[in-house]
């Protein structure tokens, strides 16, 4: 088996996922195309150089439907001989694209891949593609479906994570993200989004609120309390799966949960030969990949078993990891991860995360891999682990090491 390497990673800045967000005017095709073209331009390979584009997206409806991967390839400077594969593992779609590409390369099915994803949450709102898991009684009833916010609050209740802890973590995310931008730590990867004329539309993560403090967050009402306790009463559904919990502690709100944003990211992956052919230097080796399924009701605890699995598969221990990127879908998700592995906070999400900068579902997995790689290089560390919680009770993880 050959090794799979990351040769480059780019991402768009993240725009607020609302009609007044800067990227709302940009199509999913255009944003994705700009990422593909940026990789091609920066690395100087030809349009037919890669085997496929594996493209993550969590809401494959409307402009994101109809095999967005292929559509994006056709809109880009890549050659029409590159097919394009749209995939959906919800929030880990971008990571799964990278992992699939890496494993294709390892297995010898092609030398080079582009993997990444896009999510235009302001244009194709979450849920636009329907979801049987929430409405089909054979699943929703028997597997005790609750929305993610309720799941995040179940985690907080089950693992004793308090509102203050969650808020403090959110403040940290904002401060670290601000610092990272101030110090130019994302510069290597950020691709300014432009219009048809090349005029800039957005060049920074506009979702960040650097002034956020405990007092401001303390004033926010919990977002999921009403749907949990009143209509339609999801806490009672949660209780069927977690009957030892007398009451769900609703700690999450807009300020300590990930932001709804538009964004995209792409990673160039290839074999050693791919790099040699195009004169590229590998930045990191993809050492291991993992995906797991777990209880769909608590839903978002996946990073813990995914990490256990990937460490086991790679023959590593938690102490072997120099840096962690754990997607900040909700504060409790990350704090539970920290609790489970007793992780040193100095190693985790050191440049902030999705609470501060936003979580474009289908892109985030590729974004955090790029961020992890940049930080390993900047701080001159070796091994990094990225992981995400995933809707419907899944988890994914990737371990990279610099070469």
């Amino acid at each position: 088996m050959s090794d799979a390497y990351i040769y480059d990673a780019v991402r768009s800045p993240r725009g607020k996922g609302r009609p007044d967000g800067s990227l709302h005017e940009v199509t999913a095709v255009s944003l994705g195309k700009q990422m593909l073209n940026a990789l091609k331009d920066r690395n100087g390979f030809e349009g037919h150089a890669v085997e496929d584009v594996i493209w993550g997206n969590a809401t494959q409806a409307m402009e994101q439907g109809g095999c967005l991967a292929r559509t994006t390839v056709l809109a880009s400077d890549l050659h029409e001989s590159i097919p394009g594969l749209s995939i959906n593992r919800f929030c880990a779609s971008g990571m799964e694209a990278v992992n699939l590409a890496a494993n294709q390369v390892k297995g010898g099915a092609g030398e080079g891949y582009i993997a990444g994803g896009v999510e235009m949450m302001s244009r194709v709102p979450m849920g636009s593609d329907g979801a049987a898991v929430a409405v089909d009684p054979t699943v929703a009833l028997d597997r005790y479906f609750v929305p993610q916010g309720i799941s995040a609050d179940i985690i907080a209740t089950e693992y004793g994570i308090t509102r203050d802890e969650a808020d403090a973590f959110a403040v940290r995310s904002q401060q670290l993200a601000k610092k990272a931008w101030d110090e130019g730590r994302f510069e290597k990867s950020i691709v300014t989004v432009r219009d048809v004329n090349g005029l800039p539309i957005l060049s920074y993560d506009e979702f960040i609120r650097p002034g956020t403090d405990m007092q401001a967050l303390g004033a926010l009402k919990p977002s999921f309390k009403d749907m949990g306790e009143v209509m339609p009463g999801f806490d009672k559904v949660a209780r069927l799966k977690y009957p030892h919990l007398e009451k769900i502690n609703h700690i999450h709100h807009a300020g300590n949960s990930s932001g709804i944003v538009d964004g995209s990211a792409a990673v160039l992956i290839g074999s050693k030969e791919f790099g040699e052919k195009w004169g590229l230097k590998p930045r990191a080796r993809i050492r291991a990949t993992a995906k797991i399924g777990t209880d769909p009701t608590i839903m978002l605890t996946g990073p813990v078993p995914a990490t256990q699995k990937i460490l086991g598969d790679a023959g590593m221990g938690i102490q072997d990891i120099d840096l962690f990127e754990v997607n900040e879908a909700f504060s409790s998700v990350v704090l539970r991860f920290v609790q489970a592995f007793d992780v040193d906070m100095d190693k985790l999400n050191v440049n902030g995360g999705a609470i501060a900068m936003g979580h474009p579902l289908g892109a985030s997995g590729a974004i955090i891999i790029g961020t992890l790689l940049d930080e390993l290089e900047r701080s001159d560390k070796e091994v990094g682990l990225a992981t995400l919680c995933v809707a419907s009770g899944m988890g994914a993880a990737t371990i990279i090491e610099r070469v």
Partner: protein
Amino acid sequence: MADFTMEKGADGVAVITWDLPGKSMNVLTMQGAQELSDLIDDALADDAVKGVVITSGKDTMAGGMDLNVLQGMKQQGAEGVFEGVMTLHHLLRKIERAGMDPKTNKGGKPIAAAVPGTAMGIGLELPLACHRIFVADNPKAKLGLPEIQVGIFPGAGGTTRLVRKLGVMMAAPFLLQAKMSDPTAAKKAGIVDEVLADPVAAAKEWVLSGPAIVKPWDEKGYKMPGGAPYHPAGFQTFVGANAMINAETWGAFPAAKALLSAVYEGAQVPFDTALKIEARWFTSVIMNPSSGAMIRSLFLNKEALEKGANRPEAPDQRVKKLGVMGAGMMGAGIALVSAQAGMEVVLIDQKQEAADKGKAYTESYFDKGIKRGKATEEKKAEVLGRITATTDYDALKGCDLIIEAVFEDPGVKAEVTKNVEAVVGEDCIYASNTSTLPISDLAKASKRPEQFIGIHFFSPVEKMLLVEIIKGKETGSRAVAKALDYVRQIRKTPIVVNDARFFYANRCIIPYINEGVRMVGEGVEPALVDNAARMLGFPVGPLQLNDETSIDLGVKIAKATKAALGNAYDGGAADDVLFWLYDAGRLGRKSNAGYYDYDEKGKRLGIFEGIREKFGTRDTEQPEVDEVQDRLMFSQVLEAVRALEEGVLEDIREGDVGAILGWGFAPWSGGPFSWLDIIGADEAVKRCDRLTEKFGARFEAPKLLREMAEKGQTFYGRFGEQAKAA
């Protein structure tokens, strides 16, 4: 004689009349369905017929499906049920399409339903398939789909039609909660079209008026009110509907789940396909042992017991004048329900004000009813007029039944017995409403022990449906007949048991509570204990129940049981909890403090944190919910089996019906014996062995159960003969 007959009028209207010979209410049989089908064919083919009116020859439309038909289909397996149900769909769909061209919707004959009164189940599903529903203006008529109450759901198109007519949100109370409506309310809800004095005349006029008859769902571009599942609004509705069904049923009722699946899947396809899907899910519910058990206990056997299945031969024993001794909560409730049933009631207490207070209970009961528009001043005056509240024993003269509900003290009770017998006639039957004292012992105070019996009510009397009749050693058959006829008068369900410690219901309830309390003492999270019970379908968990019945009563029972059993007594961790709460003055709801905290108004807030501290809940590894549930289930069902083994219970039907009505035993299971039949005696014994090994001898499988496991028997197989005989 046919169930359906047709008369073709000179005006061109064919009137089809449903009139089951020899029955007071129509039910649909397969033969009836065939007759109706033939008549519809005839009417549609006959050029002289311009339209059809379907009505009933009785003052009601119909009570529903003949449940024996369902049992019959079930004999032939899933295929038999599915095909049988599809036959009904074809018939009703034939009525609904009425000969219209399938493509153009042209042609066809109007078919109206003229509903004279109550229409339930298929009695409403048939009208729903007609083009317009006319209902007699009869406020006493009940219209609705009660199927969910016996563990099934409306399976003759009622589910699919009502959802398409009203939308999921509006149809939900009628389908999921079996909401009954009078004709006016049914019209307001959009279920029926017209409410008037003469529905047949109005229906005839309507069919001759050349009306539009295409159902909305057969029109092009039909959209479900409120949206189908993948319409944005519909999506939210279905998310909510799933959550609410889980939340409200605690996931314990298979029929509700199947119903929602039929609705969800049916909403995404054309109407005829939706009916097929409805039939598939309906079949799955019929084939689920839960529905058979529920129908058996909650419909067939409940009715059989109410009609006197175990009544000894004796002349009519209906009560004319009742004496109630003691005007406390139970006495007052007994007076209320008896006066409501038309009996003359003498309510006696030691002090006049106590007797008056007991009578005032009836007054406030009616005042509440009047406020809600469910009762009238006249009715109140009439019922109050039947109750005499007094201290004077002479007023008891002429009573043919006495129910004693005084303080639970043998001495006090004996005194009352003597004083009453001194004034009443020799024929008078004397009943004690004791819940704890053996009837045979109390009967010793009586001159006529063969006329002495136990009639054990549950609290609150006016709400609880079960009455437990207890035969003492010397109780004669006329006393039993008297008690049964009385219970029938007050329209409750009786079970008849023999005299033994705690009779039947309390005998099972007490170990259920104790097992829950014991777990708390072991450090099991209290919420887990009560939630596990709710997930089994119990209306309240053991801890909440103990708060209701009170901790001091628990302590009293524990002490008495200890005294009675001596060394065999196994109080264990349960007593630690009980006595600790008792010593802390946390006596349950009545002291606004027990396992739960309550606010000043008595609203339950949450588990008392002190319990977790005292019993180390947080440091205890929590058991799986299945294990908690098995402990709670077996603590009860093994008592039921022992009661049968010891002859306290003579009829398993009474054991099952009594458990569901008496303390809300997992209704989906059909009762303790039905539940054991569902899991199988063999499996039950295995679980008993595991529980015994882990938790002690109280879980040892009774000899009877072990024997049945060895022989591969079921309770209804082995004891069903006796059940059938009646």
